[in-house]
Every structure is written in C-alpha cells, then in structure tokens.
C-alpha cells in the first residue's frame, strides 16, 4: 500500500509527541481505541484562561495513518478556541492526508480522541465549580460525576 506524502511526513516527523500532566485542571485527556483493535490514541490539550488551546500532545499505538491522523490533529488544535476545536471533523483529516477508504477509521479515531479530550477538560472545569476556567462554562454537575468515574477507567 502506498502512503501519501503527507502521511509519510507526519509519520516520519510526528508533531507534538508527548504527554501533559493529566492531573492538571487545565489539561484535557482523551484515550480512545483498544489494543486488541490495533489502535489506541491518547490526545491531550492544555487550555489557557482565554479558552484557547495553548498546547496539544499525542501518543498513538497504531498504523502509520493512525499516527499521522493524531499528529495532524494536534497541529490543528494548537491556537484554536476550544469551542472551534469541537468542529474538527474526521473528513477534514482524511482529505488532508488523502487516506484510502480502508484507513478512514484512523481519522474517525482522531476525531473521537479530540472530542474525548475536550470533554475531559470541560468536565474537570465544571467539577471545579466553574472557578477560573475562562469563558467556557459547563455547568452540568451530573456529567461531571459520570465523567470522573470514566476518567478513572482511562488511567
């Protein structure tokens, strides 16, 4: 199978590899996929006071297209407002990387990872009582409780 130049570029020079402190209240962590399916993505965002994503990191277990999809996602997230970031669609990733049909699920997983990270950040900040978490206020405490339990499973 031949890979597009963009997949190869992200695979050979992955952007933003690493981890942020998952206990930091300004950090949202999303882990999606499963080892037995051959794909696991961990994507993290760090959100500033103004609601902008100041940093994004990833680690991925998966094929070259999965690594490239998550690398590209972190690149797009940095500097964006967290609400704009929810607009990120897998089709954008798939077309940017020219993924073949059999690799579309890699871009879907990247979208899921972004959403999970944002959700985690929102939950943390809602659970913190809305104090000092910038313009984005998510006041659903029930979701916070469920989220905390799910957060525990991810670790």
């Amino acid at each position, binding site marked *: 199978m031949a890979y597009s130049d963009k997949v190869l570029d992200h*695979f050979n020079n*992955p952007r933003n590899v690493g981890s942020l402190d998952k206990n930091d209240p300004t950090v949202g962590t999303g882990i999606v*996929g499963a080892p037995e399916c051959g794909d696991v993505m961990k994507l993290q965002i760090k959100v500033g006071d103004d609601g902008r994503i100041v940093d994004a990191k990833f680690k991925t*277990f998966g094929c*070259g297209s999965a690594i490239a999809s998550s690398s590209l996602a972190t690149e797009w997230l940095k500097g964006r407002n967290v609400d704009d970031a929810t607009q990120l669609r897998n089709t954008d990733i798939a077309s940017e990387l020219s993924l073949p049909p059999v690799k579309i699920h890699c871009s879907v997983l990247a979208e899921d990872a972004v959403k999970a990270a944002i959700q985690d950040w929102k939950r943390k900040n809602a659970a913190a009582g809305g104090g000092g978490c910038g313009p984005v206020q998510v006041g659903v405490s029930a979701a916070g409780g469920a989220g905390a339990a799910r957060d525990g499973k991810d670790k």
Partner: protein
Amino acid sequence: MPVAVKTPIYMDNNATTPLDPRVLEAMMPYLTEKFGNAASRSHIFGWKAEEAVENARRQVAEVIGADAKDIVWTSGATESDNLAIKGIAEMYAEQGNHIITAATEHKAVLDTCHYLQSRGCPVTVLPVDEFGLVSAAQVAAAMTDKTVLVSIMAANNEIGTIHPVAEIGKLCKERGVLFHSDATQAFGKIPLSVEAMGIDLMSISGHKIYGPKGVGALYVRRKSPRVRLTGQMHGGGHERGMRSGTLNVPGIVGLGAAAEIAQRGMTEESGRISALRDRLHAGITAKTDHVRLNGHPTRRLPNTLNLSFAYVEGESLMMKFKDLAVSSGSACTSASLEPSYVLRALGVPDDLAHSSIRFSLGRFNTAEEIDLAIERVNAAVAELRQLSPLYELAQEGVSLKDVQWKK
C-alpha cells in the same frame, strides 16, 4: 569497516522467493527453441518437451522419496490443495464424507474444506496448542467411520511450526483414512518422505523454493493404497486424467531444477539459514525487551522467525524499517481488519497479533543483512514505543488487561 549492504533487504521468503539463476538457466531453452507441447507425440519438438517434463518429475519425486509417476503437475499449491481435497471428497463420497483439518492451515485448504462443508461434508477443524501444533491423538479423537481424509500441513507459513506428520500418517494408515499434507513451505527445506510419513497426497509449490511462480505439483500415491481422485479440470486428459491442460513445460523444468538444487544443498542450507535466523532473534532480544516468539521454539522451519513487539503495531513498524521487506499479522496489512487467524489460533492475544512481524529468510540472505536488520528493528521499536500510549501505561505499571477500553 562495515560491508555496504544493498537495500531493500528481502526477508519475506515464505511469501515468495526470487528465481535461482541456475533455475532460470535450466528454463531458458524451454521458453525459446524447445517450445514443444509435451503432449505432441508425432515429432521431436513434443518428444523433447516430454523428456524434460519426465526428468522434472523424477527431480521432484526424489525430494520426497516418491516414484516419478506419482507426481501430477498443477499451477501451484493452491490448485494442488483444491485438487487433493475436492478430488478425494468426490471420488470417495460413497465411503464417507468427513474431513479433518486444523485451524492454522493455509486458506487454500481451509476455504476448500468450507466449500465442501457448504455442500454437505462434515468438516472438523482441530484447534492447535500455544505453539501451533496438532497431535495425532487429536486427529484420532476426531475420526469417525465416515472420515475419508485428513489434511494437515507439514509446516506453517506464518510461524514455521512443523507438525508431527509421521505420527498422523501412521494413525491414518491404521484407520484406513487418506492423508493429505500441504508441504508448500516444508518441501525442499526439511527432509520429507512420503513412505516414512505415511503421506498419500502432498501439495508442492515452485516459487517458494527459488523456482518460478505458476507451477506446482501434487503427489498422489499409486501403491498401498492406490489413491484415486476426481479431476477438477476437464479437457484433454493430461496427467492420468487428474489434471487436464497443456503442461507448462518451462515452469515444470524450473520446478524440477529448483527441487534438485534444494535437495542437494538442504543440510548445508538449513544449517546456514537457521544460524542467520537465530542471530537475528538474539540480536533483537539483546536490545529490545517485551518480544514474544510466535510458534514453536524448536519444531520450526529453519528460516522462519515470527515475533511480536509488545506496545507497537506491526504496520507502523514496517513503515519505520522500510528497507526491510517483511510481513505482519497485523490487521492493518490486510483488507479484513482482523489480525492473523493463525496467531489467534495459537491464543496470541489480539494486541500482540497486531504487533507481529514475520521474518522469513532465504538462500540469498547474508550475515551483513542480518546485522543491519537487527539495527533497524531495534531502532524502530524504540522509536515507536516512545510514541506508544500503551508503552507509557506499561512503564507506569498499569496492566493493559485491567484497563477498560472505549472501543
């Protein structure tokens, strides 16, 4: 000074092999001036072709201790498997219809059996142990008075495990059941004897032993017992009516030459290649931890090394060491999105099946190539583990089994 190694390095010899130059040389006249049809009885062109075909029959038969007349030419091992299994099922339908095979067989055997199952033949697919072995006892326990055929491969293509073929053959003789063995990977690499192993039908391929693609053979026993089968290709009645079609003379000459070369050099070559294989294995595990050997540690083809590199995925590994031509049991390399059914049958967890790489060495690999491969593999695994969230979790002491994944 290190010797310059030409890349890419080919280490996928269980998929196919390059033509040995000596084989090409033997074939050349039969592609040009000696072009006759082996079935032409009326002139020298046909006689020359027939003579070459009969010589190749002897060359192939000698590797397995058979009589030349027992060899039927086919287009390859897939056709040989189909002909053996369907041909026996059809010919012996009045005596019984039950077939026994194993979970790690090649798809050419498994899918043929499934086809017959859809036509009403009961099929037993035996499970294998953690090394990929079936035992004669398992075969015995599965036999019924309706069993007509047992089909167990000599050695597995993905993991190289060598089955106890002689024991299974002995059992089949005692029970009066025919025994077919797909020897695509074993033929020419390890000693095989149809007499000592009680094999009634054996599938053979040309391109796995430095012969040409598109040619194979089926050994069909003619004495004690005389095995009959229903031809699946109808036409001019070639090959004793078992396989019609004009013979692929240059291909058959090539298979014959390849078989003779393999037979003559088998002891030396298997020693040399297994030493290279063990050097590769040792060089990798000296630097890289969490590496699992898939298949049997000793009962294994001399050229095959199937390893799982925990926490990294196979296709991405192959992208990293792109100047090594290997293969993987990862789903990402297949259209099915399922990891290798062979590794699954051994009970290898799916995550480790996704992490598997098969190195299959061959006649033309060198020690310098092995050393470069060791370097490339160790560097790629280290690099990708730095990228792996699973490796990070494992380093933190989290057991991946305890994590509930969001699929």
